[in-house]
């Protein structure tokens, strides 16, 4: 039973982690909480649905289609909504409110186009279950966890081992010094939005396939929890986001196991509250400079 619940928690935790990374990436670069993230996650899942249902693409092409369109949507959010504000030197609060507004616009568009009801989504990796240490585990969970983990590792390698990743870290730490080393800062910001949006799209697709349905409200709770995960782990820190996501996922399944299902939405925020009391910058976060 414990093993089973642990696996349940890890599976959903990796999804939280994948979404949390998006919050962290953008926060790291712009010091801005990007509240469009949860709607971009939803948009990502819907774009796969559009690809399959309306464009009759096979599922892999549909995912690719979603990655490109959603990633591009992420870039447009910055270019049209946030860059003009930065150029005018607007405050962080106005930028944050802008992201909240854009988020509503995106969700409302989805509502108008697809309605607010549950829509079935293809089940990409339902290969039944297997037994491990007496626990029944769905292959789905293993695959979702594995895909999310592979992506997180790939993202981490990209950021820590490539030239562009180095530029991203440089922009994060000292934006004014990045430009004088020949880094095109606006390009790096766009790229960050693209990566954040694309990873949200993958997370949304994984969840939609895991649940086998999607709807326009699917990002509401996940978005909040992933944000909690990012802050819990130390926003701006990639390992922190992953850790935060896993902690929240596992503590949720443990709460259902020990306390009951109605505690599920409370756990994330109670934990966040406790951790911030002890470590105001999150588990792996640091004051001042933040590291991805």
């Amino acid at each position, binding site marked *: 039973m414990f093993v*089973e*619940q642990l696996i*349940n928690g890890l599976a959903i935790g990796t999804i939280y982690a994948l979404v949390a990374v998006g919050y962290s990436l953008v926060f790291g670069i712009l010091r801005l909480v990007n509240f469009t993230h949860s709607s971009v996650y939803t948009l990502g899942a819907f774009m796969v649905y559009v690809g399959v249902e309306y464009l009759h693409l096979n599922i892999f092409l549909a995912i690719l289609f979603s990655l490109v369109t959603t990633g591009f949507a992420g870039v447009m959010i910055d270019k049209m909504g946030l860059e003009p504000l930065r150029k005018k030197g607007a405050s962080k609060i106005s930028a944050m409110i802008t992201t909240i507004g854009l988020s509503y616009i995106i969700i409302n568009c989805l509502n108008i186009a697809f309605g607010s009801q549950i829509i*079935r989504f293809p089940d990409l990796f339902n290969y039944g279950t297997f037994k491990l240490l007496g626990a*029944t585990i769905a292959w789905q969970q293993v695959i979702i966890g594995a895909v999310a983990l592979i992506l997180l590792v790939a993202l981490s390698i990209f950021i820590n081992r490539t030239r562009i990743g180095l530029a991203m870290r440089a922009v994060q730490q000292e934006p004014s010094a990045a430009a004088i080393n020949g880094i095109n800062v606006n390009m790096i910001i766009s790229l960050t939005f693209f990566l954040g949006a694309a990873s949200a799209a993958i997370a949304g697709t994984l969840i939609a396939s895991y649940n086998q*349905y999607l709807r326009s409200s699917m990002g*509401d709770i996940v978005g909040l929890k992933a944000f909690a995960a990012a802050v819990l782990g130390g926003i701006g820190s990639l390992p922190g986001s992953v850790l935060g996501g896993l902690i929240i996922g596992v503590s*949720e399944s443990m709460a259902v196991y020990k306390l009951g299902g109605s505690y599920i939405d409370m756990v994330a925020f109670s934990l966040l509250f406790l951790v911030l009391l002890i470590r105001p910058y999150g588990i792996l976060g640091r004051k001042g400079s933040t590291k991805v």
Partner: protein
Amino acid sequence: MKKKLCMLLALLLVVTTLGACGNGAAPASTASASASGGNPTDKTPIKVAVAGPLTGNYSEYGIGFDAACKIMVDKWNKDGGINGRPIELLSYDEKSSTEEGLAIAQLLCGEDNFYGVVGHFSASMAVGTLYTEERVPLISASSSSAGFTGQGDCCFRLNATISTETMGMLECAKTAGKTKLGVVYLNNDWGRNAYDNLKTLLQEKGNEDWEIVDAEEIAGGDMDYNAVISNLNAAGAETAIMFCYYDSVVPFTIKARTVMPDLNIVCGVNCYNDTFLKVGGKDVEGCMAPSVFAAVSDDPDVKYFVDEYKARTTQVPSSLTAQAYDAMGVLLTAIAENNGELDKEAILKSIQNNDYKGVTGSCSFSENRDATRNFSPMVVSNGQWIYY
């Protein structure tokens, strides 16, 4: 010049007020005339209303009520109305809001030639006293709150109380021969109430036929149901009793199919609808629910209603919608019963004592104005709700 203008304005004012008075007075006088005589040449429409959420979160319910009542009223009008008088259906959007519902009730109470309401959804518990004061019959097709009919002797309920519905669900579990129950209930008043009720019922029955092996309170909606399902699995539940709406039942069922393929899932009446079947697809095959209404029935009245409803909305009517249809049937029959004597107290009495047989079965009311509902276990098969 100025004086003249003032006079003119004053005159205008007098004329318009008189006009308004006249407008208000005219139908009232015909109403009293018809009430006293039942004049067969009187063509003044008899007004009834349907109120429900046509927009907002619960719009699917209101839209269903509205369509069902229209079908019933159209049927009566085709047969010549009541005593030769046409029936006019007033339709109001409660907008999923209690305040809006109350405003509608106030508006309706001011109508002339007006004899009853079917519906209310969000405001059911707020409008009962007002209608009772105005002696307007209110028949709810959906309320399951214990106190609904207690609001006054004009409030009738053509829906099962929680206990009756729960009993129906237990019968489903028994019929399927899977009586080890895992209860999954929503963490709101309704869900907790339903669970408490179930426990009381089992105590009364001496706990012989059923056993609760696990109870899981859930937050509902888009949560990850795997953790809950693991608990049910470990407890050895054979049947999941779902006290939650279909937007939780469907996600739950999809997940349960992988880990617990043999789990018997019994949901409430609210899952007896098209959306549940459509989004649930192959996964909700085998799900059970007690229902007072079976769209697949051969009964000609049911067939007429289902065909008409499908033609107008392209959907199969839900159980609650069918109850709204019957509620309107009960109301119109009661109005017609009194030989054109449109006396409000007489109509109320007729509703109370009706022996109407509708598409949801007998619609007779108990002393405290709750309908006795007879549930049959239904099951999803080939994308349809059929008798088990």
